[in-house]
């Protein structure tokens, strides 16, 4: 009994010492000064790299911090509908923005960047994928987005229809996904031979996959839009950020990450 009690005391003391030292070591001198306004943006997980960078630029410029809640674009809208929280909505494609518009969830929206379809193949292109026709070769393991649920799925269907290859390629489809990044990951992990994704997605894998362009006559171009949500508590700042994403300042950042820009040519539309 005595030794038990002693052991408990020892364990407690050790735990306390460990906890105290962790706290001491981890405790930073001064937390950076908290910005006054924080925006919450529901964003497609695949657009993370340019958005993170642009968020930091915007904070430096205006003092307003943007927090992103990332998920697959298809999951963002249900989230927003249930929680009724957040200031901005940045899905991976116009298709999702239309759904939000139809439900009357937006104050305003505008396109900010464009992306187009490309083929991605394994690093070093061991299967020698040179064109869309190669996706129809027997024995190829091809991945496409779900045509009913996600934008890249509908885009790939349109590409294959235009190239009159849909039937042949669909025979080779071994994976149909709900999030475009899963296709890139499957290529990177070597589970697929080829997939059709956005150029912005392919840029995430720079150096890890082979990118094969699709001729303009077959390719499909899509738009990343930004919307200000109707229940935003800071609509002024949110609109400012939306316009910032569509500005000349944001252009090089989007381009660096493989997107093309829409710039100010596009006007904001009222939701």
């Amino acid at each position, binding site marked *: 009994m005595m030794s*038990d*009690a002693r*052991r*408990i005391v020892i*364990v407690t003391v050790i735990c306390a010492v460990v906890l105290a030292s*962790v*706290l001491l070591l*981890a*405790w*930073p001198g001064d*937390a*950076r*000064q*908290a*910005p006054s306004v*924080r925006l*919450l943006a529901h964003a497609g*997980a*695949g657009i*993370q*790299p340019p958005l*993170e960078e642009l968020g930091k630029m915007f904070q430096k410029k205006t003092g307003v*911090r943007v*927090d*992103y*809640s*990332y*998920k*697959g674009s298809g999951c963002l809208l249900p*989230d927003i509908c*249930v*929680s*009724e*929280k*957040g200031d901005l909505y940045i899905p991976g494609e116009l298709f999702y923005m239309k759904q939000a518009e139809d439900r009357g969830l937006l104050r305003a929206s505008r396109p900010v960047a464009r992306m187009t379809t490309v083929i991605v193949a394994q*690093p*070093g292109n061991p299967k020698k994928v040179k064109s869309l026709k190669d996706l129809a070769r027997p024995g190829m393991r091809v991945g496409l987005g779900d045509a009913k649920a996600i934008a890249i799925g509908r885009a790939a269907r349109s590409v294959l229809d235009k190239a009159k290859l849909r039937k042949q390629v669909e025979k080779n489809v071994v994976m149909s996904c709900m*999030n475009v*990044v899963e296709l*890139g*990951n499957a290529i*990177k*992990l*070597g589970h697929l031979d080829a997939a059709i994704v956005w150029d912005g*997605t392919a840029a*995430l*894998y720079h*150096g*890890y996959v*082979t990118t094969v362009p699709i001729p303009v006559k077959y390719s499909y171009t899509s738009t990343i839009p930004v919307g200000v949500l109707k229940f935003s508590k800071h609509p002024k700042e949110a609109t400012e950020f939306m316009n910032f994403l569509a500005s000349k300042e944001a252009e090089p950042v989007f381009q660096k990450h493989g997107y093309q820009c829409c710039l100010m040519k596009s006007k904001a539309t009222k939701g």
Partner: protein
Amino acid sequence: MTTTEAIGSPRGNVGNALFAAVVGGILVVFLAAVALVLLSNVKYLAEPQNWSMLDEAKAKSGWQFFLEGLKDPENHFAIKLSVLMAAITALLSMVVAIPAAYALSRFRIPGSSVIDTLLDLPIVVPPPVIGLSLLIFFRTDLGHALNNLTPQWFVDAINYLLSKFLGQPINDDKVWVYSTRGIVLAQFFVACSFGVRAVKAVFDTIGTRYEDVARTLGCSRLQAFFKVVVPMARTGIVAGLVMTWARAMAEFGPILFFSGATPYKTEVMPIAMFLRYSTGRIESAVVLLLIMLMISTVTLLTFKRLGGRGYLW
């Protein structure tokens, strides 16, 4: 007298040996499969030439990837947030679990099968169910009232402490949805159910005799609980606390739904892994995976050392 002797015949011996070999063999194969699957992560990191065309990646060893991951400030944030949130959740869980488990262990309660089911539900349901349920709950009038009733000084104090500890400004308002402190809520239900199960197992093994004796010697129920049961159960309770903490650390689905996947805000380790994976940075995700694997191993060893039982969920 052993069974082998009882059967006696050489044929029986062969049969028993064969049986032992098959049963043991299946165990070995399964353990090998677990080890193989987990160790393949190390192999993946160690051979970047198999997945990269970049010279800088090819030149790195798996160890360098791992060290870089250890130095990454975003990972530091994730580790600190995970450890802290899970610790708070585990302690709160114990505050509920110890009395609740005692009640379940000692009182004959009518409708105990209903209670049992309700108690195990959070552990058994797919984790996102809890997350979505919380999201829906905070839409209700009661949920809104709960937001409004949260005192401002409490919110301010939590924000201040979190900002200090995490080194990142945290300034949530009274609303729990998508807040950093909401992670505790997302972890709590599963962890607490788990904690009740763990602590109840300890109380069950102690039996009522010691308390009964204490009460015949003049202790009240309360005194018997604090002077007899709790000291006897202390090591078991600590083991339960450790496992509850581990369970809270492992939570992902509820946090993704209820707190969101926001870098430097609600980015606990599993969320950090998800964010890396969803931008194609698989090797970063694997580094985090290995860190989590190590933490879990140490936790389990601690649990066993404290005499915790293996049959808890």
